[in-house]
């Protein structure tokens, strides 16, 4: 119970999100209408992806400082889940955009940013697979991970705020919270963020455990 409370919390929060998201009450908004329900899925996936990326970089730095191979495994698996979340966020965003902006993939700096982000992390895995030696692979991919993260951050946080964007909170658009969200929505939105983020960590932890078991098995042989 002491170790698995966060998994129970995750399941409870996600069920709450799903039920509220599908049948809960939602404020009527022009253009948005019922699609506002997607705010429980699309936006938390982004928050989750950001958290996972930061975790990946964190373990990359830890690996460079300590040289413990387990940190490298953590780093790469967090990046893996971040790609998954990025793709899911992209898809949910495309569905949403199809009904509100009239185009699944309109020209928008944030969409460009996520496409670049997915490219960066795909390149990260190509880089990883091109090394045989464990330590070398860990060190070089950690260096690339940190470097890419530093180059990627301005793209996500600065550029969308300078150019025109369809997303709320960018380029002079008001943020979502100001007009569209009322307290009912917030009651679901914040738990949804926590729930989706925990789910990402959970998936990652399972994959990490699998890798560690595999590594130990090959070491035994």
């Amino acid at each position, binding site marked *: 119970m002491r170790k698995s409370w966060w998994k129970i919390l995750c399941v409870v929060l996600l069920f709450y999100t799903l039920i509220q998201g599908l049948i809960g009450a939602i404020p009527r908004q022009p253009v948005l209408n019922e699609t506002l329900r997607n705010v429980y899925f699309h936006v938390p996936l982004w928050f989750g992806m950001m958290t996972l990326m930061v975790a990946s970089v964190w373990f990359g730095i830890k690996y460079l400082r300590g040289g413990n191979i387990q940190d490298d495994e953590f780093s790469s698996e967090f990046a893996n889940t971040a790609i998954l979340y990025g793709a899911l966020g992209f898809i949910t965003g495309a569905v949403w955009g199809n009904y509100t902006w009239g185009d699944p993939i309109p020209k928008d700096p944030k969409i460009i940013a996520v496409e670049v982000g997915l*490219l960066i992390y795909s390149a990260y895995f190509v880089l990883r697979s*091109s090394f045989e030696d464990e330590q070398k692979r860990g060190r070089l991919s950690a260096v690339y991970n940190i470097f890419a993260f530093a180059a990627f951050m301005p793209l996500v946080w600065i550029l969308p705020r300078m150019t025109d964007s369809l997303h709320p909170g960018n380029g002079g658009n008001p943020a979502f919270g100001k007009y569209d969200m009322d307290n009912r929505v917030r009651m679901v939105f914040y738990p949804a963020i926590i729930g989706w983020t925990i789910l990402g960590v959970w998936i990652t932890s399972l994959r990490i455990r699998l890798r560690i078991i595999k590594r130990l098995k090959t070491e035994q042989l």
Partner: protein
Amino acid sequence: MQEIRALIEKEIRLEWRQKYALNGMLLYIVSTVFVCYMSFKLKVDIIEPITWNTLFWIILLFTAVNSITKSFTQEGAGRQLYYYTLASPQGIIISKIIYNTLLMLVLSVLGFVVYVVMMGNPVGNLPLYLVCILLGSIGFSTTLTMVAGIASKAENTSTLMAILSFPIILPMLMMITKLSKSAMDGLGWETSYDEIAILLAIDAIVLSISYLLFPYLWRS
């Protein structure tokens, strides 16, 4: 400081001795521009200003990727080990970045001249465009030097170089094309301070990260 100067001097002397690499890069940029001239100017003689600008930066990007890739691969493993015992990693990365910036400046200014001669010159604010080329050279070389260092440790260096560097360099490229577009349109300096500041900020981030991370790379 002295170490950096000595290393830069070494790079320049090395480049000067094997002139084929430098000449190759120059010929590369000239022939690419010529291909563009053949396909745009000769046939239809219409080129939109936006296409003109983007084409120029794409040519420069590929030239930069090609010329900077070799900055770690042209020296053998034995010689790198020798440098490892002699110089500090910080000195090496800073000197390589400065040298590559100089190289990129030479290449891009010459490329610009050839490009203007062949494709016409729609630039309205020439000083601003030159500043843009300067910022672009600094940005390209700082980012690509570090990536070249990573890619040189793997086997398929040239493929890795492209896939690792393009996504990272995209934000910079977007800013540069935006800045150079306003330079083309002949807008004044005061409209572009934001872009210049952001470009300098990105350069500073990349430079400091390279400075911090290169020692780990150099060890292997």
